[in-house]
């Protein structure tokens, strides 16, 4: 009887041990594969050896086409500087999802953290910890609360966006000027209305534009079909129209599509803000001479150089500090620690093939 008892007990204990060993083996395998992957990643990352520091990019979320272009610029700059660069981020752009990644960057001892904040305040406490651990914080694309970062790199200022469009239409109309119209997004679009206001103010105040006459502003609601019809309507209602400004990527593409198939092709100037990939055919067929947009890659590029300047003490984030951002030349820190990348990039037949976004 007693013998039976013992053998039963050890038997079930053995079963349990087998299960435990299997579970351990599985988890070891899991962790080991994870580490193998990491080994590769770190060896390529820190190939420099005596790297001047490490930079971590924290976009709002990973796998976003716009983000990829921005980070491409950041990687280029990091490569030029010699930073070991890595990108961390959540798969979804929720308010607090970035925090574990900030903490991870802190733990890895990142020298520079470049972040596009999903929530200006939610990232605050963890950025504070990162700074206490010695990291410099550069916000880009979307600012954090100014208390939590050293500088904010902004793509453009609204005034520049407005003025560059006016400048282009003026150049394309030539000395005689003429009537122009604006094809905007929705009537309530904050960005577009701000740019249009700068255009109107400049037309009223700058004598260089005295012969340009803004006849109307119409709204295509950022809908390709509606924008197409609005463009059509403009040319019917204003037969003397010489130019159209469309400060929205949907609007300019729709207007270009209409013009390219109409008699007005090459006679009515069209400019505004457009995506190179959408506008390429219209630039090549002569419908559009020149349009503009900011180059997202420059944003990441300047942000990385701002990080370097903070790290080596060239700038502290105070107003008036200047630093050199690689190929893009000297940048100045403005009020509230804001660095502006620069005026929008102009795209024409000469350079449009250099851009892919």
């Amino acid at each position: 009887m007693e013998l039976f008892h013992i053998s039963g007990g050890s038997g079930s204990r053995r079963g349990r041990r087998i299960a435990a060993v299997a579970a351990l083996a599985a988890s070891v395998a899991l962790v080991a594969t994870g580490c193998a992957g990491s080994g590769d990643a770190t060896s390529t990352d820190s190939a420099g050896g005596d790297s001047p520091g490490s930079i971590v990019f924290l976009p709002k979320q990973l796998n976003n086409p716009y983000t990829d272009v921005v980070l491409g610029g950041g990687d280029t700059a990091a490569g030029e500087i010699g930073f070991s660069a890595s990108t961390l981020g959540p798969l979804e752009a929720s308010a607090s999802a970035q925090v574990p990644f900030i903490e991870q960057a802190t733990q890895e001892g990142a020298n520079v953290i470049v972040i596009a904040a999903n929530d200006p305040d939610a990232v605050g406490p963890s950025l504070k910890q990162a700074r206490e651990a010695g990291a410099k914080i550069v916000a880009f694309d979307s600012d954090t609360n100014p208390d939590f970062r050293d500088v904010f790199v902004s793509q453009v200022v609204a005034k520049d966006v407005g003025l560059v469009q006016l400048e282009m239409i003026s150049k394309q109309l030539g000395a005689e000027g003429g009537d122009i119209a604006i094809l905007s997004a929705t009537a309530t679009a904050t960005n577009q209305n701000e740019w249009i206001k700068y255009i109107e103010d400049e037309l009223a105040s700058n004598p260089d534009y005295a012969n340009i006459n803004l006849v109307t502003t119409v709204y295509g609601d950022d809908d390709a079909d509606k924008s197409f019809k609005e463009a059509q309507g403009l040319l019917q209602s204003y037969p003397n129209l010489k130019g159209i400004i469309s400060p929205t990527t949907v609007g300019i593409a729709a207007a270009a599509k209409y013009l390219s198939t109409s008699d007005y092709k090459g006679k009515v100037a069209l400019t505004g803000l457009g995506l190179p990939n959408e506008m390429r055919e219209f630039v090549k067929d002569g419908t559009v001479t020149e349009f503009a947009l900011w180059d997202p890659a420059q944003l990441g590029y300047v942000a990385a150089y701002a990080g370097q300047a903070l790290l080596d003490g060239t700038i502290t984030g105070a107003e008036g500090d200047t630093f050199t951002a690689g190929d893009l030349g000297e940048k100045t820190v403005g009020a509230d620690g804001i660095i502006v990348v620069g005026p929008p990039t102009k795209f024409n037949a000469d350079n449009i093939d250099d851009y892919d976004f």
Partner: protein
Amino acid sequence: MSETLIDTSAAPKRGLPRWLRGNDAIIFAVLLVVILVSCISVKNFASTLTVGFLLIQIVPIILIAMPMALVIISGEIDLSVASTAGLTSAVMGVLWRDSGLDIGIVIVLCLLVGVAAGAFNGFLITTLGLPSLAVTIGTLALYRGLALVVIGDGKVSNFPTWLTDLSTAKIGATGIPVVMILVLVVIAFFGVLLHFTPFGRGLYALGFSKEAATFVGIRVGHAKFWLFVATGLVSSLVGVYWTLRFASAGPDNATGIELSVIAAVLLGGVSIFGGKGTIPGVVAGVLLIGTLTYALRLAKVPETTLTIVTGALLVISVVGPSLTGWIRERIRLARVRREVQRLSTSGHISA
């Protein structure tokens, strides 16, 4: 003879205390191995920073996992926990911004919001007898919607700095967050409630069979109602903590953590069918999923791979116990058959 056989399988084992045997022991062992392997092979893992960051990251999960374990053991489920936390956060933001009340009173009012949210779930489930899955899917949307109504898409962030600092403060140089004291109190409360009170034991009975539980005198409706009030209260506590930790009250706070909580609870050995599970197991489950995620992230495993790993772990944790149970039963039956055969041939069976 047959009596002896039954005795053998159910005989108490000497050595380890009861809660450290079986599934709990396996989870703890896996957790230890993950920690050890991470310390050795993951760069930067072995540091006090890890303790602080890791513990703070799992605070919301481990808090809600406690009452959630009790709810699942009793055969129910509560999917509205994250939305309750979000609603609490929204109410907290608006009260702090507009009412001018002391932050202490604001927090107490917020906890009452959680109690009310839980009581509403409890009322629908016990008094009206509706299934908890359906009810809490409904309130998951309802409470999140209310959060949007309360605060709109705005954010409130100007909470007292001493309080937001406290939410991430560490105890001396240990790296252990101060908030872990609160967490330990909550764990101890639910641990004692489940394992050392008649109410807690009744929950196991409830999970196995509602009818049987009623027959032996357990007030089924009463027990369930208070369980949902408990999840509501703890969820609102998490809502308050979340708001302070991120210094930001918004309607989207804590979105989606109900699934992380349930995953950790199941990984901790609680049966989704009810009637099985322990608080130490759940604590180990939360720590395991938290540590593994943290270590893999630090090892630069891409996020997409990470979700696959945690998903696979969950499937294994659900399939594992029933599979090992089946194998164990097969082994036992085979052995019994062998023993019976041996004993009968040697003649001992006649005794």
